């Protein structure tokens, strides 16, 4: 299937629903289009951290997983922190 994440013409999945995510949609799509890994890490981390702060662990770890993957790919210094959060929630090893 086409791989554009969080396409703006479809609703955000229920488990990830949030106004913050909605606000980030355009920025995420733009960063994906530009293959801007640094921005992707920042945006997905922001979404993940927001969901975690709101008590939405599944949604938070979903977004943090994306942030972590792009951080790994980019050799981004936040990879260790993101991994630690996922590990603390039992989502990575």
């Amino acid at each position, binding site marked *: 299937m086409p791989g554009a994440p969080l396409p703006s013409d479809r609703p955000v*999945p229920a*488990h990830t629903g949030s106004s913050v995510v909605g606000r980030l949609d355009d920025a995420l799509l733009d960063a994906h289009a530009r293959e801007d*890994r640094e921005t992707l890490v920042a945006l997905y981390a922001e979404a993940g951290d927001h969901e975690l702060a709101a008590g939405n*662990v*599944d*949604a*938070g*770890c*979903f977004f*943090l*997983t*994306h942030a*972590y*993957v792009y*951080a*790994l*790919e*980019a*050799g*981004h210094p936040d*990879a260790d922190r993101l*991994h630690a959060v*996922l590990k603390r929630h039992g*989502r*990575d*090893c």
Partner: protein
Amino acid sequence: MNSIDRRGFEASGALDLEGRGLPNAHYIDPDMFREESEAVLIRNWTGIGFGKDVPDPGSAKPVDLLGIPLLIVRDADGEIGVFQNTCRHRGMILVDRPKKLRGVIRCPYHSWCYSLKGDLRTTPHVGGPGHNMHADIRREELGLVRIRSHVWRDVVFVNVSGTAPAFEDYAATALSRWAEFEKPMVFGGPDSVFSLEVETNWKLAVENYCESYHLPWVHPGLNSYSRLEDHYNIEEPGHFSGQGTTVYRRFSDDAGRVFPDIEGLSQKWDTAAEYLAFYPNVLFGVHRDHAFAILLEPVAIDRTIEHIALYYTAEGATAPDLAEMRRANAQQWRTVFEEDVGVVEGMQRGRHGPLFDGGVFSPVMDGPTRLFHEWVAAQITNARRTASI
């Protein structure tokens, strides 16, 4: 295989050439190409690329060996590794063009991530959204498939079958012969590399490189200073063959400048140069002031890409005032190798003559070529015997 020449196909599986060259089938029959490729290229140490093509930590280059997708990667420690370029999850091609990896190798399909050493680092959402683990997915068992590899003279060799002797043993006689040339050599840069696409079976490029017999006819420009009698055969049965010259003359420009010599060479190399066909598919040349490697990429039974790269001492490779000489030296070699295209393509077309019986070898001049044929035949014989066990 044509109906005329079924020589060599004994019930035992042994391929006996009866003193002649490989039959036509080895150059034009697709079934033989498949069998021979497995026996000769997959089971031995085959060149697939150059270290220069992955110059920095994180450099990655996908290559195709007989349809097998491989990935050459230089890791953070500077070591070169070769992996099957296939994700362990759903078999997706991981890297589809040369690139500089900043972190991990991320599969573009479901984003499984591998370290530059092939370890599986994470498996996003594998246990459901936001759950990156599952008991059935054991990361320690799902790293990239590493292909046995070794780098010699900047050529990246692989033994895909994993059954060949260790490279140091496989290449021991060549390493010994050229021990004096085990010195740091530096790729000459963008002007020191070129490729030739040739409509021929890769073996014919080896065969042509092995012998000096053709030099006065195909390379008449050499006659002025490098006569046929100035050359000698190099014959190491089972390992390599080639030719040498005793009248190597250094390349120089109009001002009389020359490339710096490789340090520590014995006097022999003041005027000697050697050219080895390192079986199966890499052709090397060494001189007192530069070296080259030719990687024969077997694209199809009748199509080969010759990848040529030239190397110098550190100063010879980088000195700005030698840039024009590096370009001219590469051009000089390009001219020589282009002169060979007509004969290797002509021999390929000649193999469609159904009455050609593999040809004969001059006992004096064709020894190195005969050795290569015998080595190929031995590889096929060994593979058939292994298969029948």
